[in-house]
Structures are given as structure tokens and as C-alpha cells.
């Protein structure tokens, strides 16, 4: 009888422990997630493997580029100072590396939505000639020839053989733990802090002018929209339209979250704006009435210079320092410096 009781207690501890872990990383003031965790339940060993893969340049053809090369923790996992992303052999891509956080709440990835699931997203940069220039099969071979990865795969999946689905699930798990939910805005929402008067005025403006696309609390609806940017003739980027071949999707791009915006410049899919006030000026004065311009932008947004200052004051409350400097998200030197 006693033994049964002990057994039940141990089992409930495990079950409770797991729930606690999921609860503690998914903020209460966030909506429910889009990612299906039943097919890839979070596990600390898998997350650790994913983190190591994310930071390892072994994943690129010449061993020079890792995921983190263009998705740096200190930039909200975007790439500050580079309008277009870089790859092996100094190649330059066609888009700005997007920031990575709160990915569990998103169901399509890349600026054009070309990836339909977080698990398979990594296949794109891995195999792109101008990014990591590898083949998935070759990466798997390299992992299977590495003593470090043999150990990490054994710990994570109880197997000594790396496979593509296991590698992809591990990369997805690490990225799923990149959760930004501790900005001043979040603390105001959970009643731990209060906005200043200026921030509050900015918040009211935001709710009126921006929230329909950059929807709280994630600060994006994660839909696709044409935000009236004139076409860059050197890129001729039609965004989602080039993927779906549907004319309504022409020049539409994924709406980015505004969280951590001080860390993720430059802005827009091609990184054309370096400063936040250039972005605001685009929305007040720069919209080009292209054929499929988003409905929300057909009526011009009018902001006085004071209102612009207030809006920026509010937007800065979306910076989440505890996410940017979270040691759990950093380069795993204890593994990769071996």
C-alpha cells in the first residue's frame, strides 16, 4: 500500500512538474499557442541540443555561418546593422533577417510565409546557396560523425543516430523557448508597473492607429499585408505573391511584431529604414497606394510631431531586456568550446 502511494506521489510530481514548466514559460496574458506541442513535447535535453545546433557553424557548408550569425540574441535574434542578410562566401541575400521570439504563436514563417511550420523552417536557410549553402543530408552526416552530437542526440532522443526530423524538432524546441513577455508593457498589463503619462498617451494612439495589424499582446496579428512600401527595383520582391501566385498577395509581407524594436533595426522586409522615426514617417507620409494596399492604410494616418514622440515613448515599453540578456538563450560555450 505504502509503495503504491509513493509511486502515485512520484508520478504526480512528474506530471505536475511538466505542467508547471509549460505554464511558467507561456505568459498568462498571452493567447493560446498555435504550435502543436503534442507532436514535439518540450524537453530540456532536446532544447539544449537545439540551442547547440542553433549556434553551431557546422551547419553551413564551409563552417562559417550558424543560425545565430543572422539571428543574434543581443538583437532580439535579428541582425542589427545589416539591411539584407549575409551567408557563406560573403553572399548577400534579398531580405532582412527577421527577429525570432514568440514563435509558438505563429503558424507561418519567413517574410513571405514560405514555411508553413516551425519544424521545417530551418530547411530553407540550411539549403539556400546564399545562406548556409548545405544539403540537409550532408548536415546529418556531419552530426553523425561528431562525438558531441552523438552524446547530445542520445541524451535528447535516446538514439545515437541523428536524423533530419529529430534535428529539426530540436531546433524548433530551442526557438519555441525564445519567449519575450517581460517588457514594461507586460508589467503594466500584469499590474506590476504603470505607464508614464507620455507612454500612456502613446498607448492610446497605438490602440487607435496601429493595433489592428500589430495586435496586442504579441504586437502582430501575424497576418500578411501590403504596407505601401514603394517597390525596390533592385530586389523586385513580391513577397507572399511570389509564393502563392495569387494577385491579392502581391507585395504582401508578414507583419512583424513590434516587441524589442530598439534591438531589431533596421526595419521592414528589406531593412530599408534604419531609424524608428523613418518608419513612423513612412506610415504618415510615405504610403504608396499600390493595388493591394492594406485596407487599414487606405485612410492616411495623421500624427502631430508631439504624437510621434508619444507613440515612440510607448513603443519603447515593448523592449524586453530580460529576454535580450537571458543567459539561457546564449551561445552554449560549455558544449561548443570543447
Amino acid at each position, binding site marked *: 500500500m505504502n509503495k503504491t502511494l509513493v509511486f502515485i506521489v512520484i508520478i504526480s510530481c512528474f506530471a505536475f512538474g511538466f505542467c508547471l514548466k509549460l505554464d511558467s514559460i507561456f505568459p498568462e496574458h498571452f493567447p493560446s499557442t498555435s504550435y502543436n506541442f503534442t507532436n514535439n513535447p518540450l524537453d530540456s535535453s532536446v532544447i539544449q541540443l537545439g540551442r547547440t545546433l542553433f549556434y553551431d557553424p557546422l551547419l553551413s557548408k564551409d563552417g562559417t555561418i550558424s543560425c545565430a550569425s543572422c539571428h543574434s540574441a543581443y538583437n532580439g535574434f535579428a541582425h542589427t546593422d545589416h539591411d539584407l542578410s549575409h551567408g557563406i562566401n560573403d553572399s548577400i541575400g534579398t531580405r532582412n533577417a527577421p527577429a525570432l521570439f514568440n514563435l509558438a504563436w505563429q503558424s507561418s514563417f519567413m517574410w513571405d510565409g514560405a514555411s508553413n511550420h516551425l519544424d521545417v523552417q530551418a530547411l530553407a536557410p540550411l539549403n539556400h546557396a546564399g545562406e548556409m549553402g548545405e544539403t*540537409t543530408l550532408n548536415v546529418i552526416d556531419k552530426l553523425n560523425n561528431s562525438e558531441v552530437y552523438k552524446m547530445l542526440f542520445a541524451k535528447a532522443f535516446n538514439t545515437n543516430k541523428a536524423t533530419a526530423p529529430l534535428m529539426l524538432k530540436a531546433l524548433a524546441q530551442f526557438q519555441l523557448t525564445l519567449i519575450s513577455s517581460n517588457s514594461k508593457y507586460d508589467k503594466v498589463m500584469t499590474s506590476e508597473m504603470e505607464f508614464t503619462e507620455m507612454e500612456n498617451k502613446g498607448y492610446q494612439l497605438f490602440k487607435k492607429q496601429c493595433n489592428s495589424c500589430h495586435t496586442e499582446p504579441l504586437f502582430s496579428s501575424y497576418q500578411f499585408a501590403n504596407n505601401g512600401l514603394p517597390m525596390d527595383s533592385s530586389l523586385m520582391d513580391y513577397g507572399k505573391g511570389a509564393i502563392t501566385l495569387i494577385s491579392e498577395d502581391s507585395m504582401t509581407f508578414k507583419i512583424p511584431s513590434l516587441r524589442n524594436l530598439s534591438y531589431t533595426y533596421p526595419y521592414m522586409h528589406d531593412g530599408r529604414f534604419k531609424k524608428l522615426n523613418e518608419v513612423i514617417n513612412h506610415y504618415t507620409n510615405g504610403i504608396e497606394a499600390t493595388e493591394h494596399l492594406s485596407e487599414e492604410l487606405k485612410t492616411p494616418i495623421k500624427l502631430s510631431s508631439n504624437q510621434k514622440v508619444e507613440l515612440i515613448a510607448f513603443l519603447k515599453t515593448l523592449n524586453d531586456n530580460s529576454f535580450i540578456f537571458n543567459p539561457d538563450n546564449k551561445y552554449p560555450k560549455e558544449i561548443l568550446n570543447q
Partner: protein
Amino acid sequence: MKHSILIFLFVFIGKVCFVQNEIVSIDIQVNFGNQKINLNQWYESEKDTFSFETVKFFISNLQFVNEDSLVYSCSNSYYLIDLEDSNSLQVSASIPSNLNYSSIKFNLGIDSVTNTSGAMGGVLDPTNGMYWTWQSGYINFKLEGVSKKCTARKNYFQFHLGGYSFPNNALQSVELNISPKANNIVYLDIESIMNRMDLTVKSSIMSPNGNAVELSKKIANSFKL
């Protein structure tokens, strides 16, 4: 007495819960007209001469139909048919014994739900050469080779057909009359497909689009018993 009741119960429950199954096998044969295709050999039609380098495709969602009503659906049934691998040219499934059916039905390709379910293993592993990387999605059908009349570089034609979403959903359903007792061989006639194409006009399809949907339809109705 008690024991015999228990034994009876076990047998009864066993009968109800575990319906006996049998394995049904269907051979897939890829032909050029009436000739069985070997890769990298020449085949002549009235219009052109072809050599095939790759014939690779997915069959999925195998179902058994009796007089228009579905009698059995094989769950998680995905088969990657690859002419290069003779072991792949047989589709086997476990179905209830003595199942009455008049036809089989299958998808040529991978459905949209599977296409949006993340990373998978086995025949669905993205390293099997049947998954795009620059955009998500399985290649349903791969046909590559050379033809004497093909005007592309090195006379090379390549058709990578896929696409799971509107308006370019290339997935096709194939239904063939089949009898439970017959020696089941399903033929795919590549000649009839090539006869309905013009390689001087279109010699490559590499992404989900209207051409991929159109060619997928032609392929789907080139299956026969």
C-alpha cells in the same frame, strides 16, 4: 467452472477486439506503352525518343471501396515509389480478412494536413529528395530525363510536381477497379503522359503552379490495371 468462464470471456473479447487481418499487396509497374521502364534506357514513341533518369512519387491514403461505399481506410498509409529502388515498387497494407471490395482508391501525392504537420520521418523524411526547402511542401511526383526533341539545355526535362493549397493544389485521387482475388498489378503508363506534352514548349516545372496541377491530372489518369 470459474476458469472455463474466464477462458470463454477472453476468447470472446479477443474475437471482438482483435479482428483478424491479412496483408494485401499491390505491385506498381511503371511502363512505356506496354514495356516496363528501366531507368536510363531509350524508349521510342511516335513523336520522340526518351530516357528516364527519375520516376519517383508518393501514394498515400489507401482506401478500399465496395460499390461506391468506403469499406476500409488504411491509417497513416504513405508509400514512396522510386523506380531506382525495386523494393519500393510494392504497396502492402494490412486490411481486415475477407473484406469485400470492388476498387481501391489512393492519393497521388501528400495531402494538405500532412503537408502542414511539421517534420516527419520514414518515407516522409525531408531528406528523401521529395521535399522542397525554399518553401514548405512535398513534391508529389518527380519525373526527370532526356528526350531527343526536348529543347532545354542538354535535352533535359524535369518535372517536380507538388502544391497543397488553393489555387495550386496538385494532389490527385486515383480509383481503380480491383478484385480481392486477382494478381494485383497497377500500371502507370509514362508514354501516354509524354504523348500529351510538348517538351519544346514546356520542359520543366519546379514549383506549385497551374502547370503542375494540369500535369498531375494527366498523370493521375494514366494509372490502370
